[in-house]
Every structure is written in structure tokens, then in C-alpha cells.
């Protein structure tokens, strides 16, 4: 079995949940004996090269130290396509960011508004054109490679997968990590919605990251329930146990980590923080991440006069994320809509008890976590206070949560994905045989 995968972000440049999921899943597939041809838009390293580049696997790949994967890693080929596509970006943001990039010399390196997208070079400002261009390249790749099944992650890559299917005649699996409804609430971008739906309709099978997402796919996109399968995400084991970093302030720390956007519910975190601080001054809060709501959040923090206890760290890289988890006593994910949500798993892995929104996919599989309605700030505040003050519950969460998370393995998730592959390939073959 060999899969042509249109994925996102391969190491060493991983910045978000989607990249982490693609990486973990590929590793798991390799472990299950699936060969992976991984196509990824890359704006790093090959800026002046040709548009398609075969990346030396040893260059970017798996931890060679991991003996388990040592045998299988040569079954993976990574193809970097020179493109500035990045996940989680609206057409407006894309235009702004790419315009920004063409201005010479900007000093955003040191800013809390620094994003993970640092464009360089000259690009068009139309996201949809870039998606179409990517599909053309994808067709080229599909024509010159052998594989059994096509697997694409989220809407930006659906046109590429459809093009690859046209060229090769192989079945296509759409993997839905987030929908436009998660990103924008009820104010969906019609163009994006249309592309998502086209992709889902064209797909032979759809994988959703949670039951929550599966429901959205069925009710909002009108897809037949039989076509949609749930495979929950997993978490990669820590390669080494980090020592808990030393904390230089006496207060406890409550953390929000994620894009500061409507979807993630940062405003509810602020209101809850205010309520906790009214009761207990010996707590600090940190909001790690950036996004379009950040200015509004900062203004609200100042308005509530809690700026001396509520901090902003800006966007964090992987090492800094580990660091901030190491400092934290509670992690809160008050997402308004979260198809899955890998970061609570990472928090638990770092021995941090978590409070997660009921409106999240991860709530379907985590038992040792407190769940809240994102809008219920009293409840969130209550639970933060409880985890900070009642050792019994926080200790139990740390203890059992870790076991729970360690059992969520990508190898198992990938096995389910592999079953989906086999199913669609078989069906395709039998149809071909019949006709």
C-alpha cells in the first residue's frame, strides 16, 4: 500500500496542530507498513530552486534514534512544493501577509504580533489562485509517481487531491481537521465553503477528527453519514522527559495556548481570569499565541485592570511551548468550536491538568479532564480555582491523565486510517472488475 499524501508542515518547521497531526499520522502509517509519498508546500530552504523538490528523507525526517522507526523510515518520500500556502489562513489574511512580505525590511521579529508566517520573495496576493497553482503541480506529481490512494488534509489541498485523482484514477480520501464553521462561526466565507463541499463530495471517503466534526460534515455539508468515518487524533510520545523548568515567580500559572481568534474563545479566558483574581491574587495568567483578536483582548485585560497579573507571550515555537507547559499549573482551552484540539494532550503529557471546552473533539476521548461550556465563565473560573487549590483533583488528573494520553498512539490511529485505505482501494478494484 502506498499513499500520496497532501499534507502540511514537515519537520523541522512545525507550527500548528495540523502539522503535528500530519507528521504523527505519517509516522504511524509507516509503522503500519504503508509507504508514504508526502507532498508539502514549503517556503523554507528551496526559495530559489525549482518548484518541486525531492527532499532527502534523512534531511528532515524522523528521529533516527527511534529504533522502532528505523526500519521503516526509508519507505517515506517527501516532496516539497515551493508554495506559500499555510494552513489556517483566510483569503484576507493571506492578502495582508503576502503584501506585507513584499515590503522591504520589516521589524516584526521582535513583536508579540509576530506570526508563524514569514513570507519572503514575490507572490501573488490571491489565495485561491495559489491553491489552483498548487493543484497543477499536484497533477504533475501524480502523473510521475506510483501510488494506490490519495489522502488530503483540509480544504486548501482538496483541489490538488482532485487533480491527482483525475490524472491517476486512484481513490481520494479527504481528511477534515477543521471546517469553515469552526473557523468563522456562522459567518462563513462562501468560496471556502464551496471548495470544502466540492472536496467532500468528490472524495471516496471522508475522515473526521471527531464525532463533533463528523456531525458538521453531515448536517452542514450534506454528506451521507456512511461516507464519514471518525479517527481521533493522537499524540506523539515525548522523546525525552523534560525537566520542569524553574519558575521564578511565586504565583501559580494558568495558561491559554493557541491562536487568539474567535474560534479559540480567548475572551472567555480573560473573563474567567478576572473572576479568579478577585478571589485569589496569587495567580498569573498567560496567553500564548497571536491572532486577529489580540488587540481586543489586550484592551479588555487593561480595562479590567488585571494587566499586572495577565501576560502575553506572543507566538511560541515548539521549545517555548514545552517551556510554558513546564511552568503551568492549569491549561485552559475554552474553544468555541474545536474539531479536535491536540494541545490539551500535549499539556497533559507535560503533567499539566486541563480544562477543556465541551465543544471540542478531544473532549470525546479524554476522561481525566474537566469539561466546561465555553461561555460559562463562572464554571471555568470555578474549575481553575479548584485545580489550583485542591491538590487531590489536580494530582489525580496528572497521574491518570498521563496514562490516558500515552495510550493515544498515532500507530493506532494510523491503523484505522489504513483500514479506510484498504476499504476504498478494494471497492475501486471491485468496481473496475465488474465493469
Amino acid at each position, binding site marked *: 500500500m502506498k499513499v500520496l499524501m497532501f499534507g502540511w508542515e514537515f519537520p523541522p518547521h512545525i507550527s500548528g496542530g495540523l502539522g503535528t497531526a500530519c507528521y504523527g499520522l505519517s509516522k504511524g502509517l509507516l509503522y503500519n507498513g504503508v509507504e508514504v509519498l508526502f507532498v508539502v508546500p514549503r517556503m523554507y530552504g528551496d526559495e530559489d530552486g525549482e518548484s518541486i523538490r525531492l527532499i532527502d528523507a534523512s534531511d528532515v525526517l524522523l528521529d533516527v534514534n527511534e529504533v522502532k522507526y528505523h526500519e521503516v523510515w526509508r519507505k517515506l518520500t517527501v516532496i516539497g512544493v515551493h508554495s506559500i500556502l499555510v494552513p489556517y489562513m483566510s483569503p484576507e489574511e493571506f492578502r495582508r501577509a503576502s503584501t506585507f512580505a513584499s515590503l522591504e525590511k520589516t521589524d516584526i521579529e521582535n513583536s*508579540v504580533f509576530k506570526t508563524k508566517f514569514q513570507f519572503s520573495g514575490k507572490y501573488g496576493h490571491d489565495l485561491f489562485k495559489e491553491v489552483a497553482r498548487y493543484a497543477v503541480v499536484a497533477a504533475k506529481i501524480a502523473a510521475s509517481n506510483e501510488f494506490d490512494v490519495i489522502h488530503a488534509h483540509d480544504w486548501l489541498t482538496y483541489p490538488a487531491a482532485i487533480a491527482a485523482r483525475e490524472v491517476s484514477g486512484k481513490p481520494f480520501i479527504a481528511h477534515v481537521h477543521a471546517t469553515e464553521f469552526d473557523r468563522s462561526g456562522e459567518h462563513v466565507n462562501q468560496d471556502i465553503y464551496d471548495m470544502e463541499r466540492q472536496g467532500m463530495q468528490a472524495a471516496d471517503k471522508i475522515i473526521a477528527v471527531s464525532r463533533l466534526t463528523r456531525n458538521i460534515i453531515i448536517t452542514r455539508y450534506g454528506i451521507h453519514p456512511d461516507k464519514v468515518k471518525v479517527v481521533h487524533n493522537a499524540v506523539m510520545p515525548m522523546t525525552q522527559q523534560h525537566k520542569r523548568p524553574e519558575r521564578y*515567580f511565586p504565583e501559580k500559572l494558568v495558561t491559554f495556548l493557541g491562536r487568539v481568534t474567535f474560534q479559540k474563545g480567548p475572551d472567555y479566558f480573560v473573563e474567567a481570569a478576572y473572576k479568579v483574581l478577585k478571589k485569589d491574587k496569587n495567580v498569573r495568567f498567560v496567553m500564548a499565541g497571536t491572532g486577529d483578536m489580540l488587540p481586543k483582548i489586550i484592551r479588555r485585560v*487593561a*480595562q479590567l485592570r488585571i494587566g*499586572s497579573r495577565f501576560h*502575553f*507571550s506572543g507566538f511560541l515555537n515548539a521549545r517555548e511551548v514545552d517551556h510554558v507547559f513546564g511552568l503551568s499549573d492549569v491549561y485552559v482551552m475554552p474553544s468555541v468550536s474545536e474539531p479536535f484540539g491536540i494541545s490539551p494532550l500535549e499539556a497533559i503529557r507535560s503533567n499539566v491538568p486541563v480544562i477543556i471546552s465541551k465543544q471540542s473533539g478531544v473532549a470525546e476521548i479524554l476522561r481525566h479532564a474537566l469539561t466546561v461550556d465555553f461561555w460559562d465563565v463562572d464554571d471555568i473560573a470555578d474549575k481553575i480555582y479548584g485545580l489550583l487549590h485542591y491538590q487531590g483533583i489536580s494530582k489525580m488528573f496528572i497521574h491518570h491523565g498521563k496514562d490516558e494520553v500515552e495510550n493515544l498512539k498515532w500507530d493506532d490511529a494510523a491503523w484505522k486510517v489504513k483500514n479506510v485505505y484498504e476499504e476504498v482501494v478494494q471497492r475501486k478494484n471491485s468496481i473496475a472488475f465488474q465493469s
Partner: protein
Amino acid sequence: MRSICFYFQVHQPVRLRRYRFFEIGKNHQYYDDHANRTIMQKVAAKGYLPTNQMLLDLIREYGQQFKVSFSVTGTALVQMEKYSPQTLESFQKLAATGCVEFLGETYAHSLCSLRSKDEFVNQVGLHREKIREHFGQDPTVFRNTELIYSDDISEMVEEMGFKAQLTEGAKQILGWKSPNYLYCSARRPKLKLLLKNYRLSDDIAFRFSNRDWPDWPLTSEKFVGWLNQLPPEEEIVNLFMDYETFGEHQWAETGIFDFMRHLPKALFSNSTYKFLTPSEAVDSFNPVGPIHVPFPISWADEERDLTAWLGNDLQDDAFDSLYRLETLIRNTGDKNLLKDWEYLQTSDHFYYMCTKFFSDGDVHKYFNPYDTPYEAFINYMNVLSDFTLRLEKTVSLPLEIKVQPKKAVVKKKSVKTVKSKTINGAEPVVRKK
């Protein structure tokens, strides 16, 4: 006798470096030494040094006829000592001529006059020491940070022994009155007021190089012509401006130095005006009336109020968080903490958090090292959090150990004595704690 009075403000804040959340409690170095050094040296080379030399030449040429005054903040002096000693020397040379007056202000260019009398008195005292140390003068005229003034402030300034204060000739306090007279505080008439003529001052400080301005180019002769058009009974024209006007806000290429160099000559040959220092002006004229200022004014922006530094939530949260620490500060003797406490009060930090982008955005942008007010706020609060932790640590430790056992003993005794007295039938004694 008609006169003009020049006063130049010399100020550099001690700028903060990018201080991250992760450093709170761990790293106590807050300042961007590199930026502070480069900016001081750049401004010295482009502005302070050549302008000081020009003024010195003019004083030598015209003797006692040419006079100016300065207010130099403590934070600027500290940075001159460190990064540009020759600038300090050149100011000292000017001080030695006897034609240059140095004014009093807060040490750290702070906004404390709006919040705390104790801190205000403290900072003015620190500044006085610094001026005495470097220039051998004892300031008798006061200028508050950004010319901020109100009736309340005038009380404190008068009590500190100053005979006059400089402030803005703001429309909202003057109404139909002219700024070109000596006035006095309504509440403390002993305190005289010199009001900035903002039109003529800003012609030099802001509009000088503006080619869209109908009066461009401004020559010394044209300026003297305007002075001559003022009603003859008006006594004094106060030209107050940032010293960075020369060479920094207005580059040398605009002709600002030539303008200033020729101004005395043009003035002496075509008019009856004289140069006076602020304290000479106060001694030469009688106040024509009191000025009521119930709400603080300043020289900033179109509104001439405090909204450049205070009023939005970012600024108010930061300001409140800072001055909440004052009682703790009074109990610490730690020199480093006191130094940081001063530097953190500098008004510039609050100016960076200003969100008035649209009306005076250009000026604000020019002076702002941060991309947005939000970043300024985040950075300042991170630094302040670390500072607060240090302060709490040093102050709380000795207090707990020393004070508590003593108190307990005293309490017991006093209870006993009271009891015994009432038992004996004597009059119950009400004791003060």
C-alpha cells in the same frame, strides 16, 4: 520693555528592552542599553553638541544680551554621563556663562504630580541635587513634565519654594486673554506663571520645515516681523520647545541652525525686544491676573490635556499598577530598586501606549519604539511584574521578622494596665494605638 524668553526641554527616557514573559522573576535588567546609547550619541552629534556650540558663540558675541533657559531631566543627565560626557561638558560651559538658567522639574520626567505629593516632592528634590551637582545652580523656576499644570499642582510647587512655573498658554484656560503677559496661580498668587505662546513656538518647533505651510520658508527677519506686529503693550513672548528641535526634529539641512544664529541680530537691529531668562522675567514684570486651571493641562497634542499619557485602559492599568507600589517603595532602601522605580515612572512609557492614532498620530509614531500601543503595554507590564516581585521580596522579609514579636508584647501589657485601672475604680483610660 518687551522681551522674549527661550526655554528648551532636554529629555531622553531610559528605554526598555524587549522583556519577555519568560524572564519575569529571573532577569532584572530592563533597559535597552544599546538603543539608549545610540540614540543619545546620535542626538548629541546631530543636535545637542552643535546647538550648544552655537548658543555659546552667540553668548560670546552678544555678552549679557543673549539669554536662554534649559530644563534637563535626570534621566537625560544620567545618560549623558554614561554615553556622551562631552555633551554634559558643553552644557556646563553654557551654565558658566551666567546667561543660561536651569529650571527645576521631576528627576525622571514623571507624571507623579498627578498622583502622589510625596513622590513629586521626592523627585523634584532629586532633580535639584543633580542640577546643583552639574551646573552649580539652584533652580527657582519650575517646569513640570510636559508643562502639566493645574491649581492643585501649583500648591505643591509653591510649597516647594519655587517663585514661578512654566506652562502652556492653552486656549481652554486663557479664553480671550493673551499668553504674552505674566500671570499667577489662582490658588497660590505668589506663584507666577509663564505661558507658552504656542503659535510662535510651534512655528519654529513644528512648522519650520513644512513646505506646505504658506509661510515657508521662515527666516529670522520674518519672525522678528511677526514679533513686531504683536500689540505694543504685551510684555513677554515665551518660546518653549524641545531642544531636539535643533538638528533632530528639524534637520540641519532645513536651515534651523541658521535661523537661530541670525535671530539675535535680526531682533536687535529691527525691534525693541530683549532676551530674558524665566527668573529675570518673573522679577521684571507684575502679574496681570490669576489663571484658574481646575483640570490639568499640558503642551501636548491638539487637546493640550493629559490624554497622550493617561486615559485609555492600557495607560490607566499600567499607571495604577505602578503607583500602587508606592507604600512598598517607601520601605525599601535598595538603591537598584529605587533607580528602576524612577525610570519606570518616565512619562514616555505611557506615551507609547497612546491609542490616539488619528489626530496626532504622526508625532506619536515618530517617538515610538513599539509597533503598536499593545506591545508597549505588554512589555511595560512584564517589566513591572518583575519589579513588583523584587520589591515585595526585599520589603516583606525584614518586616515579618522584626515587627511582629514586639507588637505582641506591647499589646498584652496595654490590655493589662487598662484592666487594672478600671477594676480599681479609676476613670477608664482610652488609649491611642
